[in-house]
């Protein structure tokens, strides 16, 4: 059986080692997996401002009841 001919074993093993451990891993490291772009949720009506209410009332005119 030609697989048991050990004269080629050194070449095969020595080629496989950098291929598997070096080149394949470098290739996989260099693929960037980008996240799909997230949509920015724009809801202008909800304000989670819980610092001083008086500053909120002056800085966010839209949150006041319409007069």
């Amino acid at each position, binding site marked *: 059986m*030609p697989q048991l001919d050990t004269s080629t074993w050194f070449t095969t093993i020595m080629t496989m080692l950098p291929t598997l*451990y070096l080149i394949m*891993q470098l290739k996989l490291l260099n*693929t960037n997996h980008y996240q799909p772009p997230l949509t920015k949720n724009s809801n202008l009506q909800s304000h989670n401002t819980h610092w001083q209410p008086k500053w909120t009332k002056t800085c966010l005119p839209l949150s006041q009841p319409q007069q």
Partner: protein
Amino acid sequence: MNENLFTSFSAPTILNQPATIPIILFPTLLILTSKHPTNNRLATIQQNLTQFTLKQMMTTHNAKGQTWSLMLMSLITFIAMTNLLGLLPYSFTPTTQLSMNLAMAIPLWAGTVVLGLRFKTKNSLAHLLPQGTPTPLIPMLVVIETISLLIQPMALAVRLTANITAGHLLMHLIGSAMLTLSTTNFSMTLLTSMLLALLTILEIAVALIQAYVFTLLISLYLYNNT
């Protein structure tokens, strides 16, 4: 007869130079790397497959086992691409070489064992004895479990070699039978060609499955030992 049958598995040479070197290196050329966020279809398919396989394989491991994810991903990619490329006619499959499979299996298996012995010594040694064995059987069972542990890398290598070699051999045999039948009895040729088509589909499945099994078993050994 023996010599003719197995000659496709001998290491190929071009002008007496070993051709195994470019053949083993070839699948790495087919992996595309690019820095763009959106790629062409082939690169996107490869990236999605990589992510999918990564998720499937590595979610069951803890943080320590997940440090092996690059190694296991490159392993499954390498074996799957090599096996699939070997299905082309007149090509040489490096995974039919016992040398390469042994050189893949032994270091990876030894790595998982050493990891287990070093970080979880008691746990990994406790795997040698199943629970609830009656006391007189303990020495014999420890010997049996040790032998089954030591045979794991051999089984990994020989399993991959034998499966791929057997599949290729079968395709060669049926193909040459078809050739001789085409001159004598044509209807049998059609039947045999159907057989060959089915075998090819099986071989595609086997190529992928073998890659998967190899990697899965190594990850299982890793799981047991982290």
